[in-house]
């Protein structure tokens, strides 16, 4: 059909092809049919999910594993509202998503038409930016802007709502290669004056500490972080989402800090005289009680988003820019000081407070995860869900390389882990990808077992099954006199049988003696997905723990012998 004017939907799909999009994660519906129709003739692979939330987390896992934007396509109304949780998850963790939603015909907007919802209105607070496309001719420009905004600066989700008459109408507008966004600035290098101020503070510090967050992952700043740490001879700690930016097994690395971080990382936070945040935002999981957080230490804050300065902490020096570029500029300006005593102290804490768990008393999640880490030699890509298993995985699965650790940090979205693993495996087929999920979160998106089975996605799903919403149970045990409420997951299915019902290979670990054998068997299975169900003891707690809202110094290292005060922090 030479010379025919393409439809808006065809133009959209052509754009995505030009953009190098490999996969679209989506679920069809009436208002999006023109776009699904255009995909029939495209080389882009459509991954049909079983629930739109699963599509957003798959795209998110794909994006975080590859650094490339994840693309979602859903229909109007409930199809679009089902993406809201995924949008929030991506926004809180700065993941680049482009979510395309079908919409009712423009003439029906606001008239309560079938499957109509004010999708841009509903999603304003959970997107980096959004568009309601009113003219077919706007599609090339809007898509160009959407991808630019999603992937640059502090990445985030961008929603594009396309009415059916706009996607089916003719679009002869040309593709555009540049954007005209006068209100959108992407920071790169920091100003010379602030670099010099930061270097001066670093040069005066006796006990410096580098606190590394997700921004360092996104900008691939790990090498520069290690260079700076080695030049300063400063220890490194990272946040939950900063895992892997710098190799957690590096001798200067103290692992994860914060609420369930290692005791030695948190000891370093308490005693440092300078803390430098690198792509991190002083989250309440990290600071505990803000007024007492590093109260006497100098603070340097490097972030690509200037709105993060003075939001929680007022830094002595702020550096606006890309973490890698700024660190590379900063390193030559830094004069190291003698930190021998400080490093010696950190090593003493490391020996004094190792991560540990009881070796007796049945199968424990920590044991399974410790073995997973050792068997995979820390090289697997791990996507964790949210809860106790997530914290144990963060503690015991040391992350050695960038984009090898993926989890919902800011939003704490249960149900993220399994679809994220599917998305990560699509993006990184050569990598060994393990989802580590709890029985609670898994059941929120377990319908995506079908998606993995259909596409023979060789992602591995390790279900830590304690038949509880374990983290809440832990709080109720420690702080609420063990008055358990809304945490008992009685009625759980047999997850092995469930997986087998989808035609998925499934293994059960019931005893500590099974762990290595079953994990090895799962590792060897590459023909498709595999589910491993670890039937762990019901009641176990994550330590160390800093009660929410308490200062870091109130860290509980060992299980307490007496009842604790209720935390003042909200969650």
């Amino acid at each position, binding site marked *: 059909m030479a010379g025919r004017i393409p439809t808006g939907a065809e133009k959209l799909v052509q754009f995505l092809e030009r953009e190098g999009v490999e996969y679209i994660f989506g679920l069809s519906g009436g208002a999006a049919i023109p776009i699904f129709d255009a995909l029939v003739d495209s080389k882009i692979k459509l991954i049909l999910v079983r629930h739109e939330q699963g599509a957003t987390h798959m795209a998110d896992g794909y994006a975080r594993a590859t650094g490339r934007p994840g693309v979602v396509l859903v229909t109007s109304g409930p199809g679009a509202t089902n993406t809201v949780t995924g949008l929030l998850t991506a926004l809180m963790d700065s993941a680049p998503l482009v979510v395309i939603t079908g919409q009712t015909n423009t003439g029906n907007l606001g008239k309560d038409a079938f499957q109509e919802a004010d999708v*841009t*209105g509903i999603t*304003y*607070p959970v997107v*980096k*930016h*959004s568009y*309601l496309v009113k003219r077919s001719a706007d599609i090339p420009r809007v898509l160009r802007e959407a991808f630019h*905004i999603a992937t640059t600066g502090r990445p985030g989700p961008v929603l594009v709502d396309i009415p059916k008459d706009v996607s089916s109408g003719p679009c002869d507008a040309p593709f555009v290669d540049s954007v005209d*966004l*006068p*209100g*959108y600035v992407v920071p790169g290098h920091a100003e010379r004056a602030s670099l010099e101020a930061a270097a001066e503070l670093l040069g005066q510090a006796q006990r410096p500490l580098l606190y590394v967050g997700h921004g360092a992952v996104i900008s691939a700043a790990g090498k520069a972080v290690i260079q700076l740490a080695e030049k300063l001879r400063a220890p490194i700690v990272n946040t939950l989402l900063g895992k892997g930016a710098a190799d957690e097994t590096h001798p200067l690395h103290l692992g994860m800090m914060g609420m369930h971080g290692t005791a030695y990382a948190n000891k370093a936070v308490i005693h440092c005289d300078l803390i430098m945040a690198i792509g991190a935002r002083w989250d309440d999981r990290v600071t505990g009680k803000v007024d007492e957080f590093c109260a006497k230490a100098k603070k340097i804050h490097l972030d690509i*988003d*200037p*709105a993060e*300065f*003075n*939001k929680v902490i007022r830094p002595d020096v702020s550096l606006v820019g890309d973490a890698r570029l700024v660190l590379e500029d900063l390193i030559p300006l830094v004069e190291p000081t003698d930190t021998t005593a400080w490093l010696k102290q950190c090593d003493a804490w490391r020996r004094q407070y190792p991560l540990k768990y009881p070796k007796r008393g049945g199968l424990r999640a920590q044991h399974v995860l410790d073995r997973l880490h050792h068997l995979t030699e820390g090289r697997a890509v791990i996507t964790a869900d949210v809860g106790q298993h997530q914290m144990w995985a963060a503690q015991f699965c040391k992350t050695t390389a960038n984009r090898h650790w993926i989890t919902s940090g800011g939003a704490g979205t249960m149900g993220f882990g399994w679809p994220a693993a599917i998305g990560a495996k699509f993006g990184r087929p050569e990598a060994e990808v393990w989802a580590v999920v709890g029985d609670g979160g898994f059941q929120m998106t377990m319908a995506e077992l079908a998606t993995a089975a259909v596409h023979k996605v060789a992602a591995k799903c390790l279900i830590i099954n304690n038949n509880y919403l374990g983290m809440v149970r832990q709080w109720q045990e420690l702080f609420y006199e063990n008055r358990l409420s809304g945490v008992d997951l009685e009625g759980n299915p047999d997850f092995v049988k469930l997986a087998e019902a989808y035609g998925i290979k499934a293994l059960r670990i019931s005893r500590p003696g099974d762990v290595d054998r079953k994990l090895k068997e799962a590792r060897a299975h590459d023909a498709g997905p595999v589910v491993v169900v670890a039937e762990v003891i019901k009641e176990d707690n994550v330590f160390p723990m800093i009660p929410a809202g308490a200062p870091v110094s109130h860290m509980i290292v060992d299980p307490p012998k007496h009842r604790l005060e209720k935390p003042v922090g909200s969650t």
Partner: protein
Amino acid sequence: MAAPEPTHEPAGIARRRRSDVHTISLYVNNKPGVLVRVALVFSRRGYNIESLVVSPAAEGDFSRMTITCSGDPATLEQIIKQLHKLVDVVHATDHTEHDAYETEIALVKLQASLHERTEILQVAENFGAKVTDYGSESMMLRVYGSSEKLDAFIALLRPYGLRELVRSGKILMVRGLQET
């Protein structure tokens, strides 16, 4: 043409405190949804917008918003940074300490008996207000000037039977060649 400020406070009527009021000027894309995005930045933090004026800018497809609000300065600092972050906001500036000309317009409808009107007209004259409707049962006045001046004017008229009040909200422009 500045009208003289009143020399006394009417008894029993508290004037609004203006000391903690901030005036923010925004230069934004003239697009649907921009107003909602801006309003959400305030409402998410429990910050109340007192007045908001939107009008087309001198050139291009841009609008000017002038927003007055009050609240603690740390939250306001966050709000301005978050406004900056919006893709559709070209710039956002708190003009509270700046050398800027500010003005506001108000329409006032009074249900004033004929024997009170002499006093009302005297007040109006003092404030440079113009009579825009004069009926047997009601009258309307138009006044403009600083928000403080309007507060004072309204307070003085309130005892005469204030039926309706419409204020435009404050607008502002930085003096000299510097951009607002």
